[in-house]
């Protein structure tokens, strides 16, 4: 008897249930339990009544929004230039943008912090933002470059033939058509920024904490329930942001080198 090929998905389904679904359910369970395993809302209310946690949360969102915005502003022109055959003829340049990502991110971040020290720049919010942009810019450039590169050039030519100025072609044709790349870039930059912990510690000399840091601190000091509650809040935000993204196939392009 031949095995039906569709049954080949079963081992992975079991794996996904154990290592993806169950752990996420556990975050929710631990978030609503006290140390003795009784149901409680105390962890969640503690977050909303603790000005420190709320402040960190607000600051993380602020840094993430600023980082994402700067990455788009710097990354979009770069992706556009790289995808433009008249301005950039070699495929090597795009490789040059990806190459640094192969070096350990923590090491690059530490070196950036030391560079600032050597130049006499005090570590703080500004250096944090610089480091974030530094770490995440390639993740914005790559998806945008990909969509621009695959874009059918005849749309832009048609617009030109119909009398659009280069500026109009750019704003009315190129930008709208490249939006899937931008959305997928935002997805790859925004949430990771909120959740990083080591980078913010290194670039601010522990002066500024981001949301990821307080999750890590709670988990590491065995305050699993509060840590889980914070992770649960982050999960809710991820859920909301994916709803905005909707059924987007661009996720399939993430990270393909």
């Amino acid at each position, binding site marked *: 008897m031949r095995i039906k090929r569709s049954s080949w*998905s079963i081992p992975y389904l079991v794996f996904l249930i*154990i*290592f993806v679904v169950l752990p996420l359910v556990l975050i929710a369970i631990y978030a609503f339990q006290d140390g003795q395993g009784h149901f409680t809302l105390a962890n969640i209310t503690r977050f909303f009544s603790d000005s420190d946690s709320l402040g960190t949360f607000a600051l993380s969102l602020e840094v993430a929004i600023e980082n994402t915005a700067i990455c788009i502003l710097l990354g979009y022109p770069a992706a556009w230039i790289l995808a433009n055959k008249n301005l950039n003829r070699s495929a090597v340049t795009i490789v040059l*943008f990806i*190459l640094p990502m192969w070096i350990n991110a923590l090491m690059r971040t530490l070196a950036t912090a030391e560079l600032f020290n050597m130049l006499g720049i005090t570590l703080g919010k500004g250096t944090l933002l610089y480091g974030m942009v530094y770490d995440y810019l390639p993740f914005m450039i790559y998806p945008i470059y990909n969509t621009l590169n695959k874009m059918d050039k005849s749309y832009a030519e048609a617009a030109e033939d119909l009398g659009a100025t280069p500026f109009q072609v750019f704003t009315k044709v190129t930008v709208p058509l490249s939006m899937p790349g931008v959305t997928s870039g935002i997805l790859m930059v925004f949430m990771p920024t909120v959740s990083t912990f080591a980078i913010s510690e290194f670039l601010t000399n522990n002066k500024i904490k981001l949301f990821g840091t307080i999750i890590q601190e709670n988990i590491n000091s065995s305050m699993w329930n509060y840590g889980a509650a914070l992770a649960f809040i982050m999960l809710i935000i991820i859920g909301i942001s994916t709803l905005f993204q909707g059924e987007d196939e661009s996720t399939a392009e993430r990270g393909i080198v």
Partner: protein
Amino acid sequence: MKKLFAQVYIWILLVLLYAPLVFIAIFSFTESKVLGNWTGFSTRLYQNLFTGNMQGSSSLLDAVKNTILIALAAATVATLLGTVAAIGIHNLKGRRKNAIQFLNNIPMLNPDIITGVSIFLLFVFLGVSQGYLTVILAHITFCTPYVVLSVLPKLTQMNPNVYEAALDLGATPGQALRKVMIPMLRPGMISGFILSFTMSLDDFAVTFFTRGTIGLDTLSTYIYTDARKGGLTPELRPLMTLIFALILIFLIVINVRQARAQKLAESK
């Protein structure tokens, strides 16, 4: 004019992107303990790295070994699991197909810290003591979705009749799989493996939460602990420089070969 402006813009970004790497490379040729302090040219750190003769930091070499072994194990299992899963998913239809693809997307959408914390809670819940195995399992979790996504398009591109033809010509399903299907899926499997391998090498957060307390270190967690103690192991500088040089050479070779192949194809 426009072209010059574009070139300058790209080069400014590249200089900023490479500044920390060049910084590390320059200071790998001096003995000073602190990065950024030049105490004269020396190749001492390189010698230390190769002889393993470092003051109390031979654990750096263990960390490098762990990083590579974990990445190899995780990428291998992820590639096998992901390829089998992709074949299964390809043959599913409707709601079931959508459901498993939705689940497959979750680890890719989750930030590292969520993956790390959630799997940490799983092991706490199950009472599993954490170490090599738990780190590898966690890495397989975030790597496999990318293998599935690399292999699925190859399955869609494949002509199903080829596989049927092999069966009609007397191949057993096993032979048809090995001699017909796998060769056609191989490019997807390879890119899935490479992607998994590099993501595992680069991971910090997931390893951090699932490595337990047995003193298991990968390069990332080693650097993190080292930096928090104050002062990086100086030998990290030559190590990073060498890794960077190797990758650079590797990419240049690939690019030159591609360019040559292209020229050859054009001249024909």
